[in-house]
């Protein structure tokens, strides 16, 4: 009763159906493993638009960073860093201050120790100059840099590792009027440190001063540079810490646990 052609035809069709079902099932399983959280097209659409917005933002950022990279001028930055480090000779307007020990003969009862220039007076003068916006300072041709310190060395003053003797000529580049005003302000450096001891001082405003470069070595044996990303991480942590402290210590109790998890 069953024709052979029928068996072949329907059998083939059934086989095809079975294979199609398997392939389709496989595709569907894959889809569900890759996109398990989405059941409808609209959810996918929302996700898509969200990602599109993200992408736009990132592209804007990229644009901005590219612009920054384009604007970044290596030579200019290097120049300003070299100027700040003090390894280049500088010139510009500023003040020239000459400090000398007392000039008149001392009386027998006067302590000569009070009437000479001490290292702390020099230090205070330089501090005052920095505070007044001096951009570079040199004493007797010794350029002051980050490592420079002042110390007393008998009758001389040690600036950095150079022994200096009076007269001390301090040259500072900056706004001449501001620098002079900072020293001569009533109750300021001049009145408290110089006049009581009758030290000799002249403050000259100059239009063009020459400051020699720093001549010492800068060798770093122990110090190591911190990469910029890590630096940002550290500052980020500090800010977070401040926020936590601000919240009345409620979060402080949970903090060690959190850190433990991170470790």
């Amino acid at each position: 009763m069953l024709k052979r052609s029928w068996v072949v035809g329907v059998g083939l069709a059934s086989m095809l159906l079975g294979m199609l079902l398997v392939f389709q099932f496989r595709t569907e399983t894959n889809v569900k493993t890759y996109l398990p959280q989405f059941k409808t097209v609209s959810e996918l659409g929302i996700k898509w638009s969200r990602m599109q917005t993200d992408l736009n933002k990132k592209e804007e950022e990229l644009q901005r960073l590219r612009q920054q990279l384009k604007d970044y001028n290596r030579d200019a930055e290097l120049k300003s860093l070299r100027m700040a480090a003090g390894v280049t000779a500088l010139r510009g307007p500023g003040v020239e201050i000459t400090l000398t020990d007392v000039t008149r003969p001392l009386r027998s009862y006067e302590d000569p120790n009070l009437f000479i220039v001490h290292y702390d007076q020099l230090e205070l003068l330089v501090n005052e100059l920095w505070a007044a916006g001096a951009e570079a300072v040199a004493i007797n041709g010794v350029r002051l840099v980050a490592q420079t310190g002042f110390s007393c060395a008998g009758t001389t003053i040690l600036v950095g590792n150079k022994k200096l003797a009076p007269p001390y000529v301090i040259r500072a580049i900056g706004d001449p009027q501001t620098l002079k005003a900072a020293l001569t302000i009533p109750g300021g450096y001049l009145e408290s440190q110089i006049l009581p001891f009758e030290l000799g001082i002249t403050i000259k405003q100059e239009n063009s001063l020459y400051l020699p470069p720093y001549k010492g070595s800068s060798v770093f044996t122990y110090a190591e540079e911190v990469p910029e990303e890590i630096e940002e991480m550290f500052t980020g942590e500090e800010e977070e810490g401040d926020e936590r402290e601000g919240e009345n210590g409620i979060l402080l109790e949970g903090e060690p646990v959190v850190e433990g998890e991170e470790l």
Partner: protein
Amino acid sequence: MLLVPLFGVGLGVGIGLLLPWEIPITYKSYTALAILATVDAIFGGMRAQLEENFIFSKFMVSFFANAILAVALAYFGNILGIDIYMGAVVAFSIRLFNNLSLIREFLIIRYWRRGSQK
């Protein structure tokens, strides 16, 4: 008679599991139509067998013609942005239920006849 399609599907599933292929996600809607077309062909073939007017060439031609028309509809619907393939799905489903009801009638009638003969 029912055993042939069942056996065929089983064999197809076995072969499908052995083959590593899968359907690209873009062609998902087409597979749906292809599945419907094959199911329709199987039911149609069963009905024809019961009516005893099954012709192999007719079966094959109608199977492929239906499938190709359905896929073409889906393709153009995709291009035009309209779900025309829905029409094919509905048409196939209606045919399916029609065929199923006829097959059911035939089987019941045959069963009754058998019962009355005994």
